[in-house]
Every structure is written in C-alpha cells, then in structure tokens.
C-alpha cells in the first residue's frame, strides 16, 4: 500500500501549498507572568555582563547591560535622579514619560535585552529608554560607490538606517512596519513602503513571508532574502540589495518595498527585475544620453563576461572557420606553444583568476595590492612565456573579468561568474551549439523566476514599453512619467510636470 501511495505522490499533480494563516506579532510564546526582580534576575543567571545597581534606601534595583546602554542617558535619566531622590520624589519620577511600565515577564526581559534599563520598585518594573548599542556611524559604502551623488551609506544600526531614509522622504505616508525575526536573535526587521503607492497585496505577501520565518538567528539582509524568496535554488539574485540610501529612496518612490534588517548595512528592495541589476547608483544623476551610453556598455559587458571565453574555446576547438584571416596565423601560433587543449587551458586560466579574486577579497588591504600586481602582471606574463597559456587567452580572460566588474551589483556578478564556467564547459564539448544550449538554459531559468509573483524579466517579457525608458535605456526626465509596472500600483504617475 505504501508503494502505491508513493507512486501516486510522484505521478499525480501536487496540491499547491496554501499558506497557513499567520498570527500577528511574535512567533514565540510570551510568558505572561508578572515580572519581579528575582524572576528577571533568574533569567539572566550567569550573565556577568549584567549590571545590578541597587538603591536600598529607595527600594530600587536597576538591571541593565552595561555595554548596551548609553552612559550619558543613563546618567542623566537614572543615576543622578536616583542618587538625589527621596521616596516621594521617586514616585513622581516614575510617572515621567521615559519610564514605561512592563506588564509581562517577556516584556521586561526583552526590554533589558534591547538595551533598556529595568527599574524594579515595589513589585513593579519600569523600563527606561537609555539604549545605545555599539555600532558604526554613517560612512561611505565600500562596495557600492558612485562618482556623483551622495556618499553616505547604510550602517548596521536599523535606527540610523531608517533615519537616513526618513530624512530624504519626509512624508507621513512612508510607513515602517516592524517585525521581529529569529528566536534567539530577535532581530528587528522593518518593512518600509509608501502607503498609497505600494501595492498592499505585495506588502502583505512580503510581511507574511517574513513572519513565517522560524529560525534561530537572522543577521543579514541577504540571509533574509534567501529565506523568503520564491526560487531559492536559482542562480540569480531575486531581491535587489543596496547600501545607499538614495537608491532605497528612489525605489520607494517607484512603488517598491524596502526591507531593513537590524545588524545589516544592506537593504533589500522588492520586487526587482533583472534589468535593475544593471542600473548603477549615479545613472539618474548624469545626463541621460551619457547614462544611456553607459547602460548599453553594461549590457554588452554582461554578454562579454558570460560568453567571451566560452566563444574562444568553441572557436579554437571546433569552429576554426570563424577566425578572421588576419588573426588566424597569430592565434594558431600562440596556441601552438600550449600543451593543453583549449578547454582545459581556459578552465585553468579562469580558475586562476577566480582564485586571485577570492584571495584579493580575503587578504588585508595592505597585502592585497601587492598580490594584485604580482598575480596579474607577473604571473600572467610568466605563464605565457613558459608556454602555459596563450596570450590571446589571457586577453580574453582578463576582458571577461573586467567586464564582470562593470556590472554594478556584486550579487549579480558573482552569479555570472558561475554561469561563465558552465558555458565554457558546454562550449568545450559541444562547440557553438553548446554555447547556444547554455543560453537556452539561462533563458529558461530566467523565464521561470518570479519575485513576489511578478516576472523577473520585466520589462522585456512581459513586454512593457513604458518601462524600457527607465530600466533599459535611461530616458530623459521629461519622458519618465510613470512608476515601474512591476510595483503594480494604482498611483502610476509621479512626474506631473507639463514639459
């Protein structure tokens, strides 16, 4: 009987899994007991970084994490007043707005964990907002630079990040919904959107997916992405990530949704389309003709980085007739010195470059530069002279590598690196037809990708002429009048100028 059932489950159509209705709020059970000093203290047994101060003459105990509170705020709001207070003044003080009463044990514990100070007095617990957890300030993003435009980048503190966005978009319609994710980490995740521009169905879908996450620790926005995306097994990134607030604000105004994860300087936007990964930060700050030229350069770079080496391999292995006559003898002679067939030669070179790249990323910056020069120039030159590779292949591989850096999104260029290897392999065994097969597989994978149920390949497919002006070429501002179609918004126009 079990066999029949297993066969059935293989052959018959699968039921589409319905999402369970999600309860609002936290995913973990709350402890509803009344908090008291001993209970809370018990929770933090063996936490020697917990500071306990007591003021026996007032009957007040303070509990806080010394490194999580702001020393000045603590001083000003708690220590000094407590030192000079008397029992009546204390009661008055406790009525002040900074002192919030905690009703459940969970609330009190979480408050202390958040960096607030817990004040215990006569069986009641008050939480004081003195939190100032350690973190970086606002600095320029190292990974995502731009020549023109603002240079401030997101930092690891969610509060700073929200501040950076709010100060650019001063509107009450900019909403920020907070969700806590992670049983151990209790990470704050903020979902920001503009109320009557973003599509509410998309927002709800995103929120429900985030709330569905049941994991212990969530640290990074990119980790969040992999937990909520439609197709985690695809090679292409599906949520656009950025470290620049100006881009986040631009996406918000286009009707997309921004997700900020506390502890991560990367911010996610949803839904995204393939073309967005070729849009650089300063595309919109340049003149549109120059920006369009640069975009076209990036698309060409995309094609080159994925297929150039593979094309070299297939031409030198199977399709000698494609080589122009003037290059023919040169190419043949430079290959004549190499002992390996072109496929292995290319794989070897590509592998070396990947190793160089990884090594450069892991090394401290002082050594990294030397390795770059040594690896790039000396080893390359020596390899050619030793007859290990041909110099035309070095040019090919170097061009592919440079082209991959032209693509602004780091996630996308990492994915493309892997694709390149697949194409080289296919080209090496099946020639140009293998290359075309590779393209076919890429197209098949791209067509299947959806982000929050909308197509990844907009605006090419499904075709939307209006979006081409924004995503494929960079149209002039007077022509960009509507928001992107992917955000499925009813509030389409954003540029109401007459000109």
């Amino acid at each position: 009987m079990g066999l029949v059932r297993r066969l059935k489950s293989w052959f018959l159509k699968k039921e589409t899994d319905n999402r369970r209705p999600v309860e609002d709020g936290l995913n973990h059970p709350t402890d509803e007991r009344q908090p008291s000093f001993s209970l809370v203290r018990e929770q933090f047994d063996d936490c020697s970084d917990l500071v306990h101060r007591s003021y026996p003459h007032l009957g007040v105990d303070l509990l806080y994490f010394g490194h999580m509170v702001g020393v000045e705020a603590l001083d000003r709001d708690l220590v000094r007043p407590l030192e000079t207070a008397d029992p009546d003044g204390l009661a008055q003080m406790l009525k002040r707005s900074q002192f919030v009463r905690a009703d459940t044990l969970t609330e009190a514990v979480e408050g202390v964990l958040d960096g607030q100070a817990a004040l215990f007095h006569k069986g009641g617990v008050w939480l004081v907002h003195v939190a100032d957890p350690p973190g970086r300030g606002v600095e320029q993003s190292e990974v995502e630079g731009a020549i023109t435009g603002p240079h401030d980048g997101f930092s690891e503190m969610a509060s700073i990040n929200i501040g950076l966005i709010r100060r650019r978009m001063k509107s009450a319609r900019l909403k920020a919904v907070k969700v806590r994710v992670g049983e151990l980490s209790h990470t704050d995740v903020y979902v920001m959107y503009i109320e009557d521009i973003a599509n509410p169905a998309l927002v709800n879908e995103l929120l429900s997916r985030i709330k569905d996450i049941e994991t212990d620790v969530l640290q990074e926005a990119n980790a969040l992405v992999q937990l909520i995306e439609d197709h985690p097994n695809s090679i292409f990134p599906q949520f656009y990530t950025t470290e620049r607030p100006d881009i986040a604000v631009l996406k918000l105004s286009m009707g997309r949704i921004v997700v900020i994860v506390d502890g991560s300087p990367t911010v996610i936007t949803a839904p995204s389309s393939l073309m967005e990964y070729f849009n650089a930060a300063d595309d919109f700050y340049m003149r549109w003709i120059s920006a369009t030229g640069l975009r076209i350069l990036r698309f060409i770079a995309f094609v080159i980085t994925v297929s150039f080496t593979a094309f070299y391999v297939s031409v030198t292995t199977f399709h000698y007739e494609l080589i122009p006559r003037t290059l023919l003898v040169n190419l043949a002679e430079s290959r004549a010195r190499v002992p390996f067939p072109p496929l292995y030669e290319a794989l070897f070179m590509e592998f070396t470059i990947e190793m160089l790249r990884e090594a450069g990323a892991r090394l401290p910056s002082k050594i990294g530069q030397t390795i770059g020069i040594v690896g790039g120039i000396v080893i390359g030159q020596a390899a050619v002279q030793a007859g290990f590779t041909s110099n035309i292949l070095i040019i090919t591989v170097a061009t592919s590598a440079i082209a991959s850096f032209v693509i602004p999104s780091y996630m996308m260029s990492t994915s493309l690196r892997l694709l390149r290897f697949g194409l080289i392999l296919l080209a090496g065994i099946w020639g140009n037809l293998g290359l075309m097969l590779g393209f076919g597989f890429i197209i098949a994978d791209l067509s299947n990708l959806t982000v929050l149920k909308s197509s990844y390949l907009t605006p090419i497919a499904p075709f939307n002429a209006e979006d081409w002006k924004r995503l494929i070429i960079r149209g002039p501002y007077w022509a960009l009048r509507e928001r992107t179609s992917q955000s499925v918004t009813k509030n389409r126009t954003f540029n109401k100028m007459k000109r």
Partner: protein
Amino acid sequence: MRKFLAVPVLALVTMAASGCGTQADKRVLEELGMISVMGFDLEEGRGEEEGNSNRTTVLFPVINPKASVEEEVLSVTSRSNNSRQELSRMTDRKLVFGQLRTAVFNARIAERGLLDDLDALLRDPTLGTRVKLTLTDVNVHDLLTFKHPAIPRIGRYIDLLLEKEAVHLFLPRANLHTFYRDLQDDGIDPVIPFINPSTDSIKLDGIGLFRDDRLAGRVKAEDMPYFVMLYDEFRQGVITVQVGQTEFVTLTALRSERDVRIRRKAGGALAAEISILLNGSVVEDFGYKNHKTKKSREELIRKINRKVEEKCERQIRLMQKLRADCIGMGQYARRLYSYPEWKKLDWRETFADMDIRVKVDLHVKDFGVYP
C-alpha cells in the same frame, strides 16, 4: 530517490569529460592545416586508355614559429578530383577546407569545362560560396611555389590581390556563387580573371570569358577596364587613353554607370545601345598640350570618349565572335520576348548578330592642379 540520481549524473559527467561524442569533430586550431588556396592542373594522359588526370595542389600556412617557411604547398595527382585522402597522408596536420579562399584553375581545365571540377567545391558545406575563382596559364604548382623576396606568403598575396581589385571593381567579382549563378542563368555567361606570374610578381592578366562552363576566350589585361565598364559599374578605376599620336591621358577616380537599351528592329534582329557615364579626374597628360581653353578641353573629352567607345566595342565584338554573352545582354533581351519565344530562341546566335553600340559620356571633375 536521491541516490539513484547519482548514476545518471555520473554518466553525464563522464560523457562530458570524454567530449560527449564530438571527439571525432574536434578541430583544435593549432593542429590544422587550413588550406587557403587550392589549385587544379591538367596532366596529359600517358596512355590512350587513361583520360587526362588532374593534379591538385593545396597551400596552407605553417603554424610553427620556428619554421623557416611561412606556407606549405602539397601536390598530388589523381584521376578524380577527390585527392583529399592522398593529401592528408602527406602532412602531419589535419587538412581542412573551411578557410579556403581561392581556387585556381589551369586554363586547360577551364577549356575542358569547369563544372565537374567545381562540383567538389560546391557540394562541400564547409566551404561557403565566397571562395574566389581564378585562372592561370602556368602550372598551378609553379604559381603557388613562386618565390619572391617581397612576397612572403603567396596565399595571402593572391587573396589580397583579387580582393582589392574586386573591391575597386577593376575586376569583376568571381567566386563560386557568381560563377554558378551566371552559369545557370540563361541570359549571361560567367567570367573568371587570370593571374599569371611574371618576373617581379604575380599579376592580373586579363579576364577569361566563358561559354557555359567552358573557357572560350579572354580579355587582354590592358582591355580589362573597358570590359568592366560594360559589365558593371566602376567605383574607383584608372584608365589611360591615347588621344593622339603622342598624347596619353590618364583618368583616375573613375566612376562609371552603365545603362542598357535594347530594342527589336524590323526583321527580328536586335539592336542595343549601352550608354556609359564616366566621371573622373585627369591626373596625367603625357605629351602635354595646353588645355586651358574650354574648347580645347571639350575637344579632349570628345577624343577620349571616342577612344573609349572604340575599345569597348572591340570587346563586344570579341564576345560576339566567341558567342559568349558575358556582359549579360541576354538578361535585358529577355524583356523583349514572351516566354515561349525566349525558349525557342538561340540566344548565342542572336547575340552574335546583334548590333551593339556604345556611347560614352565623360565628365571630368578636374584636370589636376597643374594647367
């Protein structure tokens, strides 16, 4: 379930590693002998029972930085044209034809009829039909082994020579495609240029006129521009015309346009007029006479026109004598007949009886910077 996947995946990986069935077709670049020129000679048969046999010569560049020669020439004699097996036994390279650019035929083979020899070239799908054709009077083997210090690579030299001329249209473009096209078209006959070695170099030596696929005659080297004027349009030609006893005028940057008008005369014969519009600059006037006045210039132009017309008409008469309509009069004459009439017509004879006149109209853009 997942364990069973390992088997097909492993199979795929081993297949991939072994080249997946395409091993036989691997043509790694440096192992190839990429033939760039191929030539065919006729060898007289020794005995009566043998027919004539063909001698096939191939030329390909040598891919060895340490070799002292740039190109290798191999030659083989056989009765059919498929000497590939023999040739491939003579070299350590894999001989391939994908980069073949020129095929050279000895004039005697052309006289015998070229279609059989072209069959191999036409049938092979790896060649492409842009392979250039050329004829030669000498042994092809001698042509391809021509040694001259300024010509390190004969294959490239021949290729560039034909290509350059064809681009400037000093020479009708002759490749597999044009030959077969004109062969099958009942209104025109194909042409192929001649190249011959001389003491200093290999030069273009006239144009071969074909009747169907047989070589019928040729246009001499000095008459080539006049033929091309009749055949198609120049774009950048040079001619020297003798306008007087001692005066020679050279025109350069010559552009020509031709216009053909045919009509039927009473009695069924045809008359045609080819008007050629020439546009050029005078760059040399040997035996100089003063041509400052407008009248004198017009006189000069008239003389040039007449000379060019004479030469052109001489070419036409040659073709008529040979019964080879290489300039395509038939394509224009087709318009005058209905389909059954055209099919019944013996075009070659009609062509031979045609009255064709040439009218040249020269416009001189400038006379140079010297009066």
